[in-house]
């Protein structure tokens, strides 16, 4: 155990401590609260970067860092494991959190109480879920994450938020129960909760235990799929996204991905060859794509549009995971990161866009377009576009491009890489499902284009009465930051993909995990233990 | 004598459980809310006795704590319920 090993803990402990410190501070201290929260997020970013570097370097064997909490050897205590994939997710979390928090500085962090604490606890939950290697601990971190998200969804109390969160909370409480049932069944079947240990024990399971294990895994997967909004389990998502305040909604986008992450991680460990349930995942994911695309087309509210966009991206991710082809995973991860950033940016942008959308004008525009009314052409003179408006429009266009997968931003690169992998499978022949999947991804991209374009045209072009909105720098910067990350991912696609390929290779070698996690030694006691202490 | 004690413990167990069943019937039948609260309170008391008898049956002190906790704090929920019946709010 070296000091660097403790870095694994930082993404969990930093927000926990920061959140705890923020609890007793009253509203008068909001500057301090923001500063502390910001510092914590920056710290998380630094530690995530460091972890990304460490897992990619030779510091740990196989690039897998293991931290035995409470100094108990692996299957018995709780192990935290960082590999490239976890580091990627942590990095994504930190980046997104940075943007969301910055965005919340001006307004959302000040209305209501305890926004900053809840935000930190949310980060703690998300990070913990990415790091933990214990099934039940995963549940606990899910709950931390969910509990904080409940509070945050309610943040900025109004009837719409309450309605949405009633649904969100009820569904997720049920999902938590399913998680418990699944975890209990898996423990009943295999007698352990550590993921590597589970993987190691899989081979030796009796048929009966194997059956129980599969039921458990199915129920567990349902819990994850509710989080990642697979059709027909994800109807809560658009409503919740549309209702939540923008910085919170941006973080929710990431939470949707936690479910997919958990499935990816667990399934690759537990069912490396058998591919249990992959078909269900594939077809369910494809149904989700169709559903999300239809939702995008039929929604006239920006929040719902973004929500359905997230559904599409989630469906794509699930279908790709369910396709079960190892070479797809790198593309899937790239897609995950890219779409998360873009949808989050879009959600942040929505609030700014709403400031220019006068309800009257948009209704008029809709009617005009619906009836294809040709109004009398105005003077052929262009309008000056204020800088704020131009910023909004261009950012919106960029978000739309990434979400729809139009060139040249990261969305296109992601889809291209998925197609490339689908078209060039290692076994040589392309399954019918592969063609269907490709068609669906392309079709959903087209539908996204249509619906985003419709929204954009109505908002930016047809909205004649719009006054240029007042934008604050702290609201503009996060959006630019997220879009800048998209651009970075596009420009540096080569190196990003090289990294992701290594990550994907890593998670496809469960033996490495089993060896690393179960073989991690505990810190020996410097003094010999006293003979069994007598019990009082 | 030991057999006698054993029989007595068995009898006590059956009696307490039967009493609990009767309380449950009252709980379900009502008819008024205070009947139900009374039944619930009695159910708690029977539960306490059950744990005491189990303690005798298994000769373990572990059961005692549960009984003590019921004795000390079982009334809180009943008081809350009655206060709700009486005042409509339990903390004013």
């Amino acid at each position, binding site marked *: 155990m070296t000091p660097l090993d403790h870095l694994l803990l930082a993404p969990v402990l930093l927000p926990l401590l920061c959140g705890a410190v923020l609890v007793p501070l009253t509203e008068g201290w909001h500057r301090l609260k923001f500063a502390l929260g910001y510092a914590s997020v920056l710290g998380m970013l630094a530690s995530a970067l460091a972890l990304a570097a460490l897992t990619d370097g030779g510091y740990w064997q196989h690039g897998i860092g293991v931290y035995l909490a409470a100094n108990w050897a692996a299957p018995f205590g709780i192990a935290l494991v960082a590999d490239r994939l976890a580091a990627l997710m942590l990095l994504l979390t930190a980046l997104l959190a940075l943007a969301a928090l910055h965005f919340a500085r001006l307004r959302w962090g000040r209305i209501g109480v305890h926004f900053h604490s809840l935000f930190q606890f949310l980060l703690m939950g998300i990070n913990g879920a990415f790091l933990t290697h214990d099934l039940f601990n995963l549940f606990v971190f899910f709950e931390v994450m969910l509990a904080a998200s409940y509070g945050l969804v309610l943040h900025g109390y109004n009837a719409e938020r309450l309605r949405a969160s009633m649904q969100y909370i009820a569904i997720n409480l049920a999902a938590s129960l399913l998680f418990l049932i699944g975890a209990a069944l898996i423990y009943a079947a295999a007698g352990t909760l550590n993921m590597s240990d589970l993987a190691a024990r899989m081979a030796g399971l009796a048929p009966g235990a194997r059956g129980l294990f599969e039921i458990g895994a199915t129920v567990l997967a349902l819990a994850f799929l509710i989080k990642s909004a697979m059709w027909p389990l994800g109807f809560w998502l658009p409503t919740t996204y549309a209702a939540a305040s923008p910085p919170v909604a941006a973080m929710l986008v990431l939470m949707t991905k936690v479910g997919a992450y958990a499935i990816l991680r667990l399934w690759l460990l537990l069912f490396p060859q058998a591919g249990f349930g992959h078909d269900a995942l594939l077809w369910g994911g494809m149904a989700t794509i169709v559903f999300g695309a239809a939702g995008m087309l039929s929604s006239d509210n920006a929040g719902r549009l973004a929500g359905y966009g997230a559904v599409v991206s989630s469906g794509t991710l699930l279908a790709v995971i369910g396709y079960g082809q190892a070479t797809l995973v790198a593309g899937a991860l790239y897609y995950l990161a890219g779409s998360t950033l873009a949808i989050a940016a879009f959600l942040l942008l929505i609030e700014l866009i709403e400031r220019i959308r006068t309800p009257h004008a948009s209704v008029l525009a809709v009617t005009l377009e619906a009836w294809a009314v040709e109004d009398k052409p105005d003077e052929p003179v262009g309008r000056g576009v204020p800088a704020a408006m131009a910023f909004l429009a261009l950012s919106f266009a960029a978000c739309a491009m990434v979400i729809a997968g139009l060139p040249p931003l990261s969305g296109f690169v992601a889809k291209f890489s998925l197609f490339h992998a689908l078209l060039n499978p290692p076994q040589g022949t392309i399954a019918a499902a592969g063609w269907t999947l490709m068609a669906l991804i392309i079709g959903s991209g087209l539908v996204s284009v249509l619906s985003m374009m419709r929204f954009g045209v109505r908002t930016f072009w047809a909205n004649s009465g719009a006054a240029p909105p007042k934008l604050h720098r702290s609201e503009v910067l996060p959006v630019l930051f997220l879009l800048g990350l998209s651009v970075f991912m596009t420009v540096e696609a080569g190196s990003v993909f090289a990294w992701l390929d290594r990550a994907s290779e890593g998670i496809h070698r469960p033996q490495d995990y089993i060896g690393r996690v179960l073989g991690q030694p505990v810190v020996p006691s410097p003094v010999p233990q006293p003979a069994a202490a007598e019990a009082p | *004598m*030991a*057999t*006698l*004690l*054993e*029989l*007595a*413990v068995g*009898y*006590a*167990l*059956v*009696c*307490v459980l*039967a*009493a*609990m069943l*009767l*309380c449950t*019937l*009252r709980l379900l039948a009502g008819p*008024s*809310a*205070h*009947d139900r*609260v*009374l*039944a619930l*309170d*009695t159910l708690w*008391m*029977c539960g*306490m*006795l059950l744990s*005491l*008898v189990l*303690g*005798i*049956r*298994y*000769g373990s*002190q572990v059961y*005692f704590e549960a*009984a*003590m906790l019921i*004795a*000390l704090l*079982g*009334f809180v929920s*009943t*008081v809350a319920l*009655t*206060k709700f*019946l*009486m005042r409509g709010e339990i903390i004013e």
Partner: protein
Amino acid sequence: MNWLGMHGLDQAPPWALGVAALLLVIGASIVLIGALGLLRLHTFYQRIHGPAITITLGTGSILLASMVVFTAAQSRPVVHELIIAVFLLMTAPVVSMLLMRAAVYRDLRARRLDAGVTAGGVYPAPPAGE
């Protein structure tokens, strides 16, 4: 048949076991009778007297039995069951007092006069109509 041996009761004096058995039987019977009263009596004001015997004598007997058995088994005075008795003495009156009062005024409020609240004339029927 050797469960007593497991707890060291085979060393205990037989009379103690006998006393304990007797107390248990009495206590349990009273508990059952109390519950029976709770179920069968006609009005709430009667029914509340059923559990009263459960709490007092039923519990008392079983607590005593427990004390006797553990004292006999461990060959040392085990009296911590007294705590339960003390706690019950402090909590049971509160419960029955509040419950009774709540019932009285609820019945008066709802004009449920047939429920026995007017018996004795302490609580006269309020004038009809509010």
